[in-house]
């Protein structure tokens, strides 16, 4: 064999800055979205200073809350290299069941409303998860089918009968509009869920398993990770949070018909992707996704508030969404190139 030669290592010293720098970049992604929110906010305020009023900000937070809550579950699912397209339908049916419970059983405790919503969501989440893991079939197909089936079930249940505000206890509705120190209660609730989830996703083994599964499913299996169990759990959480979102929908709008939650799947996936969660799994954070939900909602409201004709809002929102994805990509490409050149330079030392 050969003489003892030093192996050229990519990063010479023990305390290499590469990893730290990368960690910093990951964090920078969230900072970037937060910055964008500020930019949009400032721009909208310049056009119309009412946008910065306390009430307007409250509405901004409220408007983003439901989608932000959904991004939590969706992030967990997408991180495992799956996707849950049925969330919109699950929100719809849970909202209706919660509304029905209040309507048909006056005096139902408020807390039970949440329990019912979460239970309905958890049921469908469990079904999605069970089918995906037991049959090992692509979740996109399963949850797309779920979207149709659950919507159909919801339709049979609703049968054209709207749940009216007078059926919803005032105390429950209060969650939708009351504020604490000027911050909407509903937003605080969502914030708590997001922060808890963000912390858990960083700090617990089982949560790290999710990243491992999405990063390399075969290797995860070899590493002895109970992959099917974890994927099932991700769907269960996603469904449960969609159920919770359904309950909050009732609190916020105090009326439910069959359109509740319709189209949310696109909004949520858009937010998750803009938030930097890799659509093919393995990386991304709950905070980034939730911030992106706030960003997209801020854009929507800024457009209306800037007195831009309603006919233009969709086109502009679409263009901004594309720009956001492209910008994010070109940024990460540039950073990757920079890193490579730096490492190349390091090699030459």
């Amino acid at each position: 064999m050969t003489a003892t030669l030093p192996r050229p290592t990519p990063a010479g010293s023990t305390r290499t800055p590469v990893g730290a720098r990368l960690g910093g970049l990951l964090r920078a992604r969230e900072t970037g979205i937060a910055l964008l929110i500020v930019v949009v906010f400032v721009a909208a305020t310049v056009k119309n200073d009412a946008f910065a009023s306390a009430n307007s900000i409250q509405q901004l937070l409220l408007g983003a809350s439901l989608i932000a809550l959904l991004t939590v579950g969706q992030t967990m699912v997408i991180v495992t290299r799956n996707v849950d397209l049925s969330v919109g339908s699950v929100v719809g049916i849970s909202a209706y069941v919660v509304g029905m419970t209040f309507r048909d059983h006056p005096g139902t405790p408020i807390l039970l409303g949440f329990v019912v919503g979460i239970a309905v969501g958890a049921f469908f989440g469990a079904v999605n998860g069970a089918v995906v893991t037991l049959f090992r079939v692509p979740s996109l197909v399963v949850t797309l089918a779920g979207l149709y089936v659950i919507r159909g079930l919801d339709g049979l249940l609703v049968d054209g009968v709207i749940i009216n505000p007078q059926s919803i206890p005032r105390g429950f509705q209060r969650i939708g509009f009351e504020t604490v120190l000027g911050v909407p209660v509903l937003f605080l609730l969502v914030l708590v869920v997001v922060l808890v989830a963000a912390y858990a996703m960083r700090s617990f083994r089982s949560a790290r398993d999710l990243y491992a599964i999405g990063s390399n499913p075969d290797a995860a299996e070899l590493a002895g990770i109970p992959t099917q169990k974890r994927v099932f759990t991700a769907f269960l959480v996603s469904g449960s949070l969609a159920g919770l979102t359904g309950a909050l929908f009732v609190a916020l709008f105090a009326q439910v018909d069959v359109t509740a939650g319709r189209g949310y799947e696109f909004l949520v996936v858009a937010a998750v992707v803009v938030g930097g969660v890799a659509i093919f799994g393995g990386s991304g954070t709950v905070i980034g996704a939730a911030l992106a939900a706030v960003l997209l909602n801020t854009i929507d409201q800024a457009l209306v508030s800037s007195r831009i004709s309603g006919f233009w809002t969709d086109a502009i929102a679409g263009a901004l969404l594309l720009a956001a994805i492209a910008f994010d990509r070109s940024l990460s490409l540039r950073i990757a190139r920079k890193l490579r050149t730096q490492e190349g330079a390091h090699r030459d030392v």
Partner: protein
Amino acid sequence: MSETAVHAETPRDSGPAPTYEGVDTARPPRWRLALRWETALVAILLLTLLIGSNGSARFFTGTTFFFAGLNIGEIAIMALPLLMIVLIGEIDLSVAAMLALSGAVMGVLWQSGTSFGVAVAAALVTGLVGGALNGYLIAYLGLPSIAVTIGSLTLFRGIAQIILPNPTTTPFPTEVATLGVLPIPGTQVPYSIAVFTVLAVATATFVHATPSGRSLYAIGLQPEAAEFAGIRVTRVRFELFVLSGLVCSLAGVLFALKNSSASYSAGFGLELTVVAVVLFGGVSIFGGRGTVAGVVLSLAIVAVLQQALTQQQVQAEVQNIVTGGLLLASVLVPNAAAAGRRVRTALRGRGRPAPPPPTPAPTP
């Protein structure tokens, strides 16, 4: 200690070596596996026809099939490029929005007095441009197609809404408007289905019998290896999205003719239907697997089923459930055996004695 314990001297060389086999060019059994879903689709189609004819005496009439064709025509046309896009492992969710946008372009131009031919040409150019936008972002910037096309679906429909806030009211020239609604004289075949048939034959030939078609499968299964085999992966990606834009704009033109009007909300929500039809046809969402025959069968089932169920006054909600159920079946049925085996193994595994606890390792 010189020789080893268990398998000392006797190499158990019993029987001839099993793995050296002669060169076998016979059709692989994997083909038969792949064909299985298509066979199932044929069975489902027959079943659908049976259900349809059982419920209504007027089911087996030319009109039913004309209606079925008329309703599925544009979806069918859009499904063909989508099939190829899914084959290379991408997805296009902007198809229905492009249908609306190109229809709107045509409608606006026609309304403003442009000649019909120019209006149609402009619609098709719109498709090319929109497809090129998708293609550029996905192929050359490397953005995930699901995210890009969610964005462009909002964008396309938004632009349609800007240029055509209200549905156009000027009817298209009657000679062409009838193309949208009447069958080819002497038959019960709508024009859109005739267009589809031509495109389907072309697609099938391309996908299954040309070098470029074969490379779609390679790209879908392993893009890097395809690149190393000299396949222009990026360009193929780009071209397929451009093609999808173009074909969807053609569908948009036909759709506008069929409705004798254009609207920015044309085909609202249809993207998921088109995706569902393609997946129901047995095309793998991960790319690299699927046939044109499967998608054609799937389209036929969806079209006939809708007629059968509506004629029998089955609630629209139930129809949704049936659609979802069939889609689910398309992935579950081929995997049912494996799933059953897994469940059985899991149960059997539980019955067996657990592995004994490890004795402590000899390491400190």
